[in-house]
Every structure is written in structure tokens, then in C-alpha cells.
């Protein structure tokens, strides 16, 4: 059963994408909904049925197909580079080709299954198909507001759906060779989708994304090279079992490659550039699923790193990015940019936790991966709604959005709250994070500082949206197309429900997924009470905070009676005050310094890889 589901989850999206693309205009919307539902049910079923790891060996011909596809991709990149006259891309493509050729040349077949479905993979499928499916659905509505031809719109949505298959496969690929292909496929989809709008900015951003991700590919290939050099099989499971130094070296390269995909500094620019693309792109590729490759990779190899200087380097790198990303975000003004940087920042935290690799830390990391995915997807979708329906892109234009788009603002606030306030998943993740990182030196300082800065960031933006309500602020729910409201509300409800059920959620969703990597997690629950070894989160606190946060929107809807309305104090003058906000201009040198520090960390990781390999 699992095998079939796996195949469906991997290949199904491509098929469905074809159907969606080819479907008549009228049918394509429902078809997207249907595909999303199908995929999600499959993922849910797989998750429910999953008992232990299932290995799936692919038929021999697939190897040839993989190789073919690999070269096709690299060839395509080369072509893009030549056509766009982008030397770096050409160079990297050639490098990739050479490295790949060499790897393939030295590769010897191993009797291992290419795909291993473990609980972690099954859990991540839920995220990919759940969030991704909703985004695809949302994209149907979103693309109607684009100037594209219907055919092209359908193509766009189809690519999104097909992409889900890639991600599904990626999270269960055991063969690094296969993983490389999938990695390159995500690069390709990034490139295509970022460049979707075909204007100058899109072109530049997409090319930037391409070369940076190619560099990631090169690093992956280097990692593979190390493994091949040692004559070891090109599989994660094999890699994890070998205890020698070269394995660490290989892991370092693999992780470094993944970190680029996770847009960790100094490679943050490409994710920022993704802003120019239609919003669903940002939502699906760059916040909720694709960038998660970075923490996923660290999480996967975490056990191998455990206790090595490499782990320390990666952890501090992650911690640094957490704080630095939040700081840089403070200075930003476009909502999407802010969201992008806070994604980078939080990815840093996940990377850090994955590198710490204690059961608690891994649980925290996975919690963050999941809930951040849900929250960020929702936030990006709302950003899209604000952009499309209210023509507000920068935070300035959102002054007083509350009176125009209460529902969107409310959901944005919910999204922000879910990352900064108890009892939401992401915050609980952070809480667990501190409790986990407290055991390992000073990492928690990063967590403490970073979470405060993130809170500052979010409240600042939230405040701005609330800034200028109309004179008599009654909240009337605005009319927005059903696609938008249903998709975002579903995510919102997920956040709200998971918040009150956070204890069971953690115990039944997160812990089993982490178990195989770091057995002996001490997270438990009693009813709604969440219990960690170092402290409890009793149910009444969860419920209390939840009620307060839920009372708020209810309160907003209920007008007070028998209470006078008065105008704001303005020193006795009858002037309308305008909303204000601070901006925190991060001086250029700080941004540069942060990039440099990031680069040093990054270089250190790669260097450590090299040293460990040689040693």
C-alpha cells in the first residue's frame, strides 16, 4: 500500500499537472482542487498507515533515465547561460557537467533501494501536499489577476502541482544520485517560476537564483564526489552508517549545498529576488516547502555530525542567520521582502536546531518546519491578496488596512501571532528550541535575541496595518474571491486548532517522525498539557492564551454599546494624525558585514568538509 501511495505521491502530481494543463478552461479549477485533495488524502493515508520504514527499489532503467535527465537539465542551464550571455551560469553548468560525468564514471551500482519512506518523509508529505495543494488551488484564483493568457495560467498551476511530486520524492530519496536530480529539478522550477513574468527584474532575479542554486548543485556533486572517491555507495543510509572522517566531509558539502537552497546568508539574495514572481511562487517554493531542504538536509545528516566541530559550525551559522536575518528584515519595507527575510531567519533557527540534533532540538526543528510552513504559506497568500485586491505591496501602503480588509489583516495578524506568541505551534517550537539549546552552550542567546527581534519586526508591521482605521471602525468582512478566503482560512483554522491541540500534535505528529533519528524524545502529553523534561505547559495556560487570542477577533466584531466615541487626542487641534512607524535603516556596512560573516561561516563549513575529507 505504502509503495503505491509513494508512487502516486511522486508521479501522480506530474500526471495531474498534465491533466490540469490540458483541461478545458472551465474544468481546470475544480481539477486543481481535486488533485490537491487527492494528493493530500494520499499523504494522509500514507502517514496513517506508516508503521516502519519502507524501502522501494526502482527498476534498473530508471538509473539511465536519471542520468539522462541530469544531463538534459545541465544542458538546459548551459543553454540558458549561453543565451542570456551569463558567464557564471555557463561556467557552473560546465563544472556541474564535468563533475557529474566524473561521478557517474566512477559510480558503481549498489544493491540499495533508491527510495526509503520513513516517518519523517511521510510527515513532510503532509506539509507538501497540504500546504502545497492549497497554494496550487489559491494560485488558480491568483493567476486570474495576472495578465497571462489562460493557457499560460494553467501551465503555471500545472508546474506548481508537478513540483509537489518533486518535493515528495525529495523528502524520501535515499539515493543521493536521485536526490541530486530532484535538487536540480527544484532549481529548474525556481528558475522558471521566478522568471515567470518575463520582465527585466524577473529575468535578473531568475538568473541570480539559477547560478546560486547551481552552486548548490556543484557542492552537492562535490559531496557525491567525496563519497565516490571513497568507493562508498551513493546513499544517505550508507553515508549515515559510516563513521569515518570522509563521511563528515561529504556531509559538509551536502549540507553546504542545501544551505544555499535554504538561502542562508550570504546567499539570501536569490530568495529575496523571488519577490518579483507571482506570490504563489514565493509561498510554495520559497517559504513553505522548497527552502526547507536546508534544515531537512541538516536534520537528516544531523546524527552523523553530532558532536563534531562541523555540527558546532553549522549550529552557530544557523543561529547567526536567525538573528541577522531578523535584523535585516527590520529595515525592509515590502511585505513580501519582510516575509522572505523572516523565512531566511527562521530557517537559520531550524538549521541550528537540526545541527544540535538532540531529540528535543530535532523535535523543535521539525515543529518549526511544519508550523512555519503553514504560517508562512498563509502569510504569503495574504500578501498576495493584499497585493491583488488592494494594490498594496509595501508596508506603507498597508497603513490602516484593517478598515479595508479586516479579514486579510486578521489572518496576517494570526500568522504573525502564530510565530511569536503562545500557544501557537511555531512559538512552542521556539520554546522547545530554547529548552533544547540551553543544553548546548550559548546557542540559546541567538534564540533569545532573534525571537525578540522577530517579535519586534512582526508587531511593527502588524501595527502599521492597524494604524489608520476609519473614523468609526466597524469591522465588516470584506468580500474576497472564495478561492482566496477558503484556502487561507483553511490554513488559519489549521493554525488555530493545532495551537490548542499543541500537546497531542507534538506527541503524535512530531515525535514519531523524529524517533528514528534521535530516539528517546522526552516529549509527552497529558490531555492538553504538554510535558517536556525541563518544564510543562499546562493545559490552562494553553487554553488561556488561546482564548485571549481568540477573544480578540470576536471582540473586534462586536461593537460596544452605551459607550461614547471620542476622537484621538491631538493636543486639542483638529488635525488628523497620520500613522507612523519607525524604520530601522540597517546601515549598508552592517548588511555587508552580515553577508561577510555568513560567508565566513559558510566557507568554514566547506573548508571543514575539505579538511575532514582529507584527514
Amino acid at each position: 500500500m505504502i509503495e503505491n501511495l509513494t508512487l502516486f505521491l511522486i508521479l501522480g502530481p506530474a500526471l495531474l499537472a498534465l491533466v490540469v494543463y490540458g483541461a478545458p478552461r472551465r474544468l481546470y479549477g475544480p481539477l486543481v482542487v481535486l488533485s490537491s485533495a487527492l494528493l493530500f488524502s494520499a499523504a494522509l493515508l500514507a502517514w496513517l498507515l506508516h508503521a516502519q520504514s519502507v524501502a522501494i527499489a526502482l527498476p534498473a532503467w530508471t538509473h539511465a533515465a536519471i542520468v539522462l535527465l541530469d544531463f538534459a537539465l545541465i544542458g538546459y542551464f548551459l543553454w540558458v547561460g549561453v543565451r542570456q550571455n551569463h558567464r557564471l551560469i555557463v561556467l557552473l553548468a560546465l563544472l556541474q557537467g564535468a563533475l557529474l560525468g566524473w561521478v557517474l564514471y566512477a559510480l558503481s551500482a549498489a544493491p540499495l533501494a533508491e527510495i526509503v519512506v520513513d516517518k519523517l518523509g511521510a510527515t513532510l508529505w503532509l506539509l507538501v501536499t497540504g500546504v502545497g495543494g492549497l497554494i496550487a488551488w489559491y494560485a488558480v484564483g491568483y493567476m486570474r489577476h495576472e495578465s497571462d493568457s489562460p493557457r499560460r495560467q494553467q501551465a503555471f498551476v500545472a508546474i506548481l502541482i508537478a513540483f509537489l511530486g518533486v518535493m515528495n520524492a525529495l523528502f524520501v530519496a535515499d539515493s543521493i544520485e536521485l536526490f541530486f536530480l530532484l535538487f536540480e529539478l527544484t532549481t529548474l522550477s525556481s528558475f522558471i517560476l521566478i522568471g515567470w513574468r518575463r520582465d527585466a527584474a524577473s529575468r535578473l532575479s531568475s538568473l541570480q537564483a539559477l547560478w546560486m542554486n547551481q552552486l548548490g548543485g556543484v557542492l552537492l556533486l562535490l559531496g557525491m564526489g567525496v563519497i565516490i572517491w571513497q568507493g562508498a555507495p551513493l546513499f544517505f543510509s550508507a553515508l549515515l552508517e559510516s563513521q569515518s572522517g570522509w563521511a563528515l566531509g561529504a556531509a559538509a558539502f551536502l549540507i553546504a549545498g542545501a544551505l544555499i537552497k535554504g538561502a542562508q546568508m550570504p546567499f539570501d539574495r536569490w530568495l529575496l529576488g523571488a519577490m518579483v514572481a507571482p506570490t504563489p511562487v514565493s509561498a510554495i517554493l520559497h517559504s513553505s516547502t522548497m527552502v526547507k531542504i536546508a534544515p531537512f538536509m541538516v536534520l537528516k545528516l544531523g546524527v552523523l555530525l553530532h558532536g563534531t566541530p562541523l555540527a558546532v559550525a553549522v549550529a552557530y551559522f544557523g543561529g547567526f542567520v536567525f538573528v541577522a536575518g531578523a535584523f535585516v528584515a527590520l529595515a525592509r519595507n515590502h511585505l513580501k521582502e519582510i516575509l522572505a527575510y523572516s523565512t531566511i531567519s527562521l530557517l537559520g533557527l531550524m538549521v541550528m536546531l537540526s545541527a544540535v540534533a538532540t531529540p528535543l532540538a530535532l523535535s523543535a526543528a521539525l515543529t518549526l518546519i511544519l508550523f512555519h510552513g503553514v504560517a508562512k504559506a498563509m502569510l504569503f497568500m495574504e500578501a498576495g491578496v493584499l497585493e491583488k485586491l488592494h494594490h498594496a505591496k509595501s508596508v506603507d501602503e498597508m497603513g490602516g488596512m484593517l478598515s479595508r480588509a479586516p479579514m486579510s489583516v486578521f489572518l496576517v495578524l494570526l500568522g504573525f501571532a502564530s510565530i511569536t506568541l503562545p500557544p501557537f505551534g511555531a512559538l512552542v517550537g521556539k520554546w522547545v528550541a530554547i529548552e533544547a539549546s540551553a543544553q548546548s552552550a550559548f546557542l540559546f542567546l541567538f534564540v533569545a535575541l532573534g525571537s525578540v527581534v522577530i517579535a519586534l519586526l512582526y508587531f511593527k508591521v502588524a501595527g502599521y496595518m492597524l494604524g489608520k482605521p476609519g473614523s468609526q471602525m466597524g469591522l465588516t468582512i470584506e468580500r474576497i474571491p472564495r478561492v482566496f478566503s477558503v484556502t487561507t482560512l483553511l490554513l488559519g483554522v489549521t493554525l488555530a486548532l493545532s495551537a490548542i491541540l499543541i500537546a497531542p500534535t507534538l506527541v503524535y505528529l512530531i515525535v514519531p517522525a523524529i524517533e528514528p533519528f534521535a530516539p528517546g524524545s522526552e516529549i509527552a502529553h497529558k490531555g492538553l498539557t504538554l510535558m517536556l523534561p525541563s518544564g510543562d505547559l499546562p493545559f490552562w495556560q494553553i487554553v488561556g492564551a488561546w482564548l485571549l487570542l481568540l477573544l480578540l477577533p470576536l471582540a473586534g466584531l462586536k461593537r460596544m454599546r452605551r459607550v461614547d466615541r471620542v476622537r484621538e487626542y491631538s493636543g486639542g487641534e483638529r488635525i488628523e494624525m497620520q500613522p507612523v512607524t519607525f524604520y530601522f535603516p540597517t546601515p549598508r556596512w552592517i548588511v555587508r558585514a552580515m553577508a561577510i560573516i555568513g560567508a565566513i561561516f559558510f566557507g568554514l563549513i566547506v573548508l571543514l568538509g575539505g579538511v575532514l575529507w582529507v584527514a
Partner: protein
Amino acid sequence: MIKQLHIPLGSQHAALLEPLRLDFSTENERIVSVRSDMGYVHRGVEHACMNRFDFKKVPFVVARVCGLCAITHSTAAVLATEQIVECMVSERAQWLRMLALEFDRIHSHMLCLAHVAESSGYEALFMHTMMERERVMEAQEILSGNRVQFDYATLGGVTRDMDSQCAQALLAKVGALKSVLSGLRDRFEANWSTQMRFKGVGAITLEEAYRLGTVGPIARAAGVRTDIRIESSHLPYRALGFEPIVALEGDLYARNRLRLEEIAQSIELIERILEGLPEGAHLSKVRGRPKGEAMARIEAPRGELFYYVRGNGGAIFERLRIRTPTYANLKAFEAIFLGQEYSSIPAILASLDPCMSCTAK
């Protein structure tokens, strides 16, 4: 990104004693431009003095231009009028006028200092300064019978004489004040937080001070050696051996110190006046009606106060013109505000010691 945010201050505001409206455009709280409206207190005193009140009432009316420097207004009006009516003012009366002026300076400066402390969030220092200020207020009551509006200077002299008992009481009050002055200075200066808050804040350069025509403590704190007490001979300040105090930095810190030093100086002057008070009548008769024109300048607590009077032989002035020190300084305010943090504005404003009721009359 909208970088400029407008922060209005006033017309009613906790940091303001008087209605005044400042509209700051700020970047992150840093002032980039300011617009002001200082006409809230315009009552039309000049008009009333030219239409309703006869010249003998004018000193009492113009005293109500401002309660902080009431005595300077009435003295200036009196000094100007005395030039164009027949009257002999005794030396004693002139000395007593100086005495009242110096008291007024002390109380005004102390109020300003207290207000600076309050505006910078140092409530205890505000209380402390106000507590010490009570001594001056009491002295003023002993001197004139009222705490604020002295109604002391009048045409031909002063409204009441002073006996030796009164002089003793005054000496005791200023003596007590003198003894606490150094402690007060310590609290303004020997404190890291006041230094952080005041040093280099709200500064004006010497050049600007000249260019913008500043007067009074603001000018002196920036290094301009200007003091009407030496620049005019309406009042016999020279007999007291007077030398103006000047500071260099021109910032809030310097202005605080300058005011404290001027308080000490005024105390000294008061002691000298009480010591060498000449004998004579405190009040002499005024004959005739104002005819011709005259001007008078005196050093008010905030700087140069100018009165111009013109009579045509009638009981009512043909023209009375007041130019107050704050009025002269207003242009400099803008220059001082620019580039400051909004959070320092109340303190800066307090230290500039603006007086809108003087300005708008």
C-alpha cells in the same frame, strides 16, 4: 518607504506651559523640519494700551503680557514713558527696580531649570528645584506683596518702599538659596544620565547665534557677550560692578550651567543692592502727559526686552510696541531643533525657555 512622520506637539501638551504648536517632520524621531504656530496667546495688549488704557495704567496692563517676566515689562514700559513725561525718579527707586528685576530673573531661571528637569523625565530634580524656588517666591511676596505679578514698578518709582526688616528677610532668603545652589548644580551636572541627555543636545554655534540675532541666555550660552544690563544705561547696573557670564558650547548643558551661574550672579547683585541701597523717596509725582517718543531696553530673564512708546500729549499712547526676547530667538529655535531627536525636544524647548505670551502679547 514613507520615512517622514509628522509629530505634532501642542497646542496643548504635557510638556508645554503655554499653547504653542510645533509640527515636526521627523525621520525615525529625528527632526528634519519644523513648522510652528505661536500665535495662540495673542490678546491684543498693544492695541488695548493704544486705545483703552491711559498711560498710567499701562505698566499694570503690560505686566500681564507675561507672568514670568511681569516686572520686566512694567519696568521697561515705565522706563520708556518716564523719558517723555515730566518726572524725577530717585536713585533709590531705580535700585529697587533692579532688585525686583533680579528676583524675577532668579525665579524665572529656576522655573526654566525645573522645567528642563521635568521635560527630560527627571521628576525628582523638578521637585527639588521647585522646592528651592519657593524661597524666591516668598521673597518676592515679601518685596512686593504678590508672588508672581509684582506690580512693583510704576511711573515715578516703585509702588512700595522697603524697610530694613524687609531687607533682612530678603537677605535671609537669598542666603539660603545661595547655600543650596552648588548642590543643585551637582544634580544638573554630575550625573551620567543628565550628561547623556544634555551634552551636545540642542546646540547652536556662535556663528548661528550671531546670524540669527539671538539674545539672552541662549546667546550667552553660545558665546555671544551680550547683556542689556551693560548695553544700556537705563538702570544703574554699572554701579554694581556687573560683568555678563558667557559659556561656549551653546548646548542644553551649557544653558543649564549658564542659568545656574546667572542665578548665583543675581543673588550677588541682590546682596549688593540691599547693601548699598541709596536713601530717598521711593515714589515721586508724575506730571503731564506723554509727548514724543522713546524707547527702552532692559535685560529680561530671556534676554533683551524692547519697548517703544510714542505719545501725542493725550492720556493714551499713540503707539506702544513690545518686542520680547523670545520673539528675537524664535528663528534660532528652528535651527536648534533641526537634527535633534524628538525625545529631546521637550527638554530643548524647555531650555530655550520660550515665552509665547510675551511673544504674542
